[in-house]
């Protein structure tokens, strides 16, 4: 999966290998599956999109003289009659990290051609993602009931709502798309599309391979990665 030894093209480790890879004939990233390289480049562009959102949020929050709503009170949840700060957010983080772990193991078992384990773990990841989206829908409806709107809210600075809905909404869209793909790929793994040299790829006539599970995993870990930053900057800061 990450072996620098490529057929007929030996790469030295470190910067020397990088120089020969970058300056090599015809293509860079020799031996890397094209889908994996493209997924990384997509994720890089997505990183810029999310960075722009978070930087806009930083600028909006920093430049307003009005008191910013206290997230640990806004996102508190009643448990056994006691308001617990950020309870739902902590649970969402827990669910997302759990699904990230099952995805990492699914990639591992995929490369070991363990169809059953890989399929069950991808399915578990999909269910974790679905739970996350459900909790986020609950969080949104709760805040909308409390009167949070993109243009106003009862807790403080009016910009809070627009940044909240945009950033968590964009992240939630990513999770939802990921969940759809996870279910599709769970089916494809169970159906044996990647067995015995591969039968069916995705939107292509090329043969499928378990590397597709790693590509899917990259996307899913990225979604988890973005949540780490949202959790730190939006909910904790």
């Amino acid at each position, binding site marked *: 999966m990450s072996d620098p030894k490529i057929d007929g093209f030996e790469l030295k480790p470190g910067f020397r290998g990088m120089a020969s890879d970058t300056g090599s004939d015809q293509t860079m990233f020799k031996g890397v599956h094209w889908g994996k390289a493209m997924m990384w480049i997509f994720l890089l562009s997505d990183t810029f999109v999310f960075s722009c959102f978070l930087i806009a949020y930083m600028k909006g929050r920093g430049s307003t003289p009005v008191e910013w709503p206290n997230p640990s009170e806004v996102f508190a949840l009643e448990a056994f009659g006691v308001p617990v700060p950020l309870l739902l957010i902590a649970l969402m983080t827990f669910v997302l990290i759990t699904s990230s772990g099952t995805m990492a193991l699914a990639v591992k078992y995929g490369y*070991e051609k363990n169809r059953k384990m890989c399929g069950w773990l991808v399915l578990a990841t999909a269910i974790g993602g679905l739970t996350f989206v459900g909790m986020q829908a609950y969080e949104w409806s709760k805040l909308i009931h409390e009167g949070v709107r993109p243009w106003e809210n009862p807790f403080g600075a009016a910009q809070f709502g627009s940044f909240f809905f945009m950033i968590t909404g964009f992240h939630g869209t990513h999770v939802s798309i990921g969940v759809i793909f996870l279910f599709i790929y769970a089916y494809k793994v169970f159906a044996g599309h990647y067995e015995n040299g591969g039968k069916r790829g995705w939107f292509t006539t090329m043969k499928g391979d378990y590397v597709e599970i790693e590509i899917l995993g990259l996307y899913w870990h990225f979604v988890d990665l973005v949540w780490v930053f949202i959790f730190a900057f939006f909910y904790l800061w």
Partner: protein
Amino acid sequence: MDDTNQINEKDKKPVESTHKIGIYLWIWGLLFVLSFFSYMVDWYQFQGMLRWSLILFFMFAKAGLIMAFFMHLFWERYALVNVLLWPMTAIACFVFLMAAEFEYTLFSRMFYFFVGGGA
């Protein structure tokens, strides 16, 4: 991992180089612990520089673990790692630019609110 050769010699089936399950479980556990600690930052209501530095520390630790091990960047070739990580410096520059900008916006808002625009 340097133990792939041993596995290949023992097993008859050619197994592609994968990492031991232990490393994934370790990183998984660490992510839970780090998330728990970052939640504790809010629970104990640390404030000021202590709060911000702890939040950033746990955030970068988690992000680094996810990228290095779950996304395999630690084992990845340097060409890919560098293509991915160098553009992050542009984001860091943007953060500093906009931080300067919001300070200035806040200052001018306060200034014209209290002192007035003159004329």
